[in-house]
């Protein structure tokens, strides 16, 4: 059994709190769940909705099946979503919610208690025994408030209407940005500068919170240009540094990306995509900035772009990003999106808690920041740690870091920087395959679509339609070795992307000569659901 609930209302009515409280309890009670949200770019009013899926198996995507429960905190919920209620589904009307609010006011003198009561009501609907809640001690939720929610469920005959068993084993609960922030800290990140921008802001929030008690600093910059330059300054001075933004902010950061490329200053840049162009849909999702990040920054220099598709991958790649940035002294990108950033999931895989640190050599006065080496990587020193003076220049420079306009030296320096591509190509993240390796159809995807495509392929297989899914957690550079094991030649390739132009399909063609025969694209600002993807893919399967 599984259970899908939608909670709709105006911004500021408390759906966010219901989701936060409910997912916290669900994770403590070891329910498998997936939660995400669809919200407008406003603080009050409008119509937002939060979607939570509770299941007996691990779930990491929106199912797309009709809702078992819809809770309407506003009148719009009924208008927009009632048609998607399952035949046996429950619609909790605005009137019923008002009744609960009334009780919250009378019994607890606090209307916001309604959020906890709603969480209690939902737990009752999935058949959670109320006594299981008594064990939750290290959580700031009031048991009486939850119990009041259970009472309402009983009164309205909703108790145990959609029973789901708690079957998860040991796990951690994160949202996508939290996983990226924690991965960054595991990668030894100690400095972040940023200018708030949805959907990247929560990465800054996590780092700023950690910075309160740990040797980490977050600085809110006056703009994204300043943010990336501060990060480069901090990296030069010796700290592994991070910036995070979305497309519009990244547009401002581009000169800094180029500066990182020229000065060979390590930096990790998280780009959390939202639909563009320009301000676009500020709070919705899209994978429209792959080409942008791929080409960002003037001039030629090496770069890596990761696009994690699961919490575990987000954490491991964020950690790796810092290591690769340092080893290759070049900018490393993590491409994510609003859907992944704002989805709350469970992670069952283990992460080694060791923090990777930057190692410096101590050099004497003969140190030259850009000394030419066979690998193209020069030893990295930071100022004030030895006799070495560290001279870094955005102009073309000689090995010492001094401006040069010598054509021969220019060529050698260009070759030095591009030589680092060899290192990057030797250290690629292999794509992840799921489904039937013998299938004639391979569904290629990247970034946040991974778990949606995986489940869709599983469902199709259960229905007798066979396909394989190949997810790219690294989208650049692409090498032949990355696709070799999957024997793509002669297979029908379908690309699933959250954009209108099939940007990754184009990149596959350009870099590896792989022809995608069908592009399944969505660009209305919403993520794919498993059901809709199944329906579309079924039409393309033999």
């Amino acid at each position, binding site marked *: 059994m599984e259970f899908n609930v939608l909670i709709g209302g105006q911004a500021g009515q408390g759906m966010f709190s219901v989701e936060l409280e409910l997912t916290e309890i669900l994770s*403590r*009670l*070891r329910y498998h769940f997936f939660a995400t949200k669809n919200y407008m770019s406003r603080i009050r009013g409008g119509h937002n909705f939060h979607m939570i899926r509770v299941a007996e198996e691990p779930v990491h995507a929106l199912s797309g099946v009709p809702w078992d429960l819809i809770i309407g905190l506003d009148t719009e919920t009924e208008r927009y979503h009632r048609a998607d209620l399952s035949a046996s589904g429950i619609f909790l009307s605005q009137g019923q919610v008002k009744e609960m609010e009334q009780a919250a006011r009378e019994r607890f003198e606090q209307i916001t208690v309604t959020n906890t009561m709603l969480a209690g009501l939902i737990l009752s609907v999935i058949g959670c025994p109320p006594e*299981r809640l*008594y*064990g*939750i001690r290290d959580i700031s939720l009031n048991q009486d408030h939850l119990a009041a929610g259970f009472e309402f469920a009983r009164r309205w005959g909703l108790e145990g209407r959609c029973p789901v068993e708690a079957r998860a084993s*040991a*796990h*951690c609960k994160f949202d996508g940005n939290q996983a990226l922030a924690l991965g960054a*800290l*595991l990668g030894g990140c*100690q*400095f972040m500068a940023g200018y708030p921008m949805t959907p990247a802001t929560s990465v800054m929030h996590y780092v700023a919170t*950690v910075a309160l008690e*740990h*040797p*980490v*600093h977050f*600085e809110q910059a*006056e*703009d994204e*240009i*300043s943010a990336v*330059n*501060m*990060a*480069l*300054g*901090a*990296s*030069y*001075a*010796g*700290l592994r*540094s991070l910036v995070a933004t979305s497309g519009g902010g990244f547009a401002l950061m581009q*000169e*800094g990306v180029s*500066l990182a490329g020229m*000065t060979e200053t390590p930096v990790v840049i998280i780009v959390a995509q939202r639909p563009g162009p320009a301000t676009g849909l500020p709070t919705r999702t899209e994978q429209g900035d792959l080409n942008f990040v791929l080409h960002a920054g003037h001039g030629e220099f090496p770069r890596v772009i990761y696009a994690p598709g699961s919490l575990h991958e987000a*954490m491991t790649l964020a950690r790796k990003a810092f290591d690769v940035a340092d080893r290759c002294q070049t900018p490393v990108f993590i491409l994510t999106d609003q859907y992944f950033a704002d989805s709350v999931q*469970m992670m069952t895989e*283990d*992460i080694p*808690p060791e*923090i990777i*640190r930057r190692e410096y050599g101590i050099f004497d006065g003969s140190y030259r920041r850009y000394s030419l080496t066979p690998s193209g990587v020069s030893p990295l020193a930071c*100022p*004030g740690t030895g006799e*070495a*003076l*560290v*001279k*870094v*220049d*955005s*102009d073309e420079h000689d090995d010492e*870091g*001094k*401006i040069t306009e010598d054509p021969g030296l220019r060529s050698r320096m260009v070759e030095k920087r591009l030589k680092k591509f060899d290192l990057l190509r030797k250290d690629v993240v292999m794509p992840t395959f799921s489904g039937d390796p013998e299938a004639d159809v391979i569904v290629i995807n990247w970034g946040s679509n991974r778990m949606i495509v995986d489940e869709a392929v599983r469902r199709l297989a259960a229905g007798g339609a066979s396909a394989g899914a190949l997810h790219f957690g690294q989208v650049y550079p692409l090498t032949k070795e990355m696709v070799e094991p999957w024997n793509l030649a002669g297979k029908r390739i379908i690309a699933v992307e959250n954009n209108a132009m099939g940007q990754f399909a184009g990149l596959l063609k350009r870099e590896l000569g792989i022809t995608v025969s069908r592009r399944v694209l969505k660009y209305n600002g919403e993520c794919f659901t498993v059901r809709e993807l199944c329906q579309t893919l079924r039409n393309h399967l033999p």
Partner: protein
Amino acid sequence: MGARKDIAWCPGCGNFPIRDVLESVLKELPVPPGKVVLTSGIGQAAKMPQYLDVNYFNGLHGRALPLAVGIKLARPDLTVIAYSGDGCNYSEGGNHFIHTIRRRLDITILTSNNQVYGLTKGQSSPTTDPGVQNLLDPRGNDNIPLNPLALALTLGAPFVARGFAGDKDHLKTLIRDAVLFKGTALVDILQPCVSFNKINTYSWYRDRVHKVEKPAEGRAEAIGLAKVWGPKIPIGVLFRDDSAETREPKTLFGKSVAREAMEQMACAKCVMMR
């Protein structure tokens, strides 16, 4: 130090005396040379670190200040000096100029202010006088000149000074005091541009500059002093507030988040109750 012939400035450029002053200030600072970092942007003045034996990050146009902020936050043990021209610090980097002062960090901001764009060949800068004609302002500059000292004072800068490239001894005292001052210090340096500014020449300045005896009493008086520009141009420390609070960034370098803390944050499994 490289011979002067390697230097990319025009003969007679006001940046030469500033370079000499900086070199001797750096030599005499009670700080090991390796602990000093210069940041700069782009422009003729921004080439300065190239001609000094010092750690430097010569970044992008307008961005000397965010680099300096990042370095200081990461390494409070370093002495950080941001050096650029008026185009870099006040125009392309104008926003950073405002917000860097607001950050209350112990950094020094030096500006070679020649009231003209040198490297791009003579266009108006934010400090160009009204009516000055050039290729891109053929009818004369329409804009009100920016007063960097008054702006810095308004923003709460605790140390604000004006120097003149033609008076090296005086300039040396100013720059040394600015670097040693605990807090954000600005020295705007009147720097003749021999190629593109035929008005504000060495002799034009020599006829006008006069040294202030001591800093103004209070910010309001200092702003008044900063605005004096005409037959008499005050140079010296216009304002100094040693009691102003300066941000103390925490020590990060060489430290690491504890493994246990990381386990708690990233690896602590959700606790099962009962």
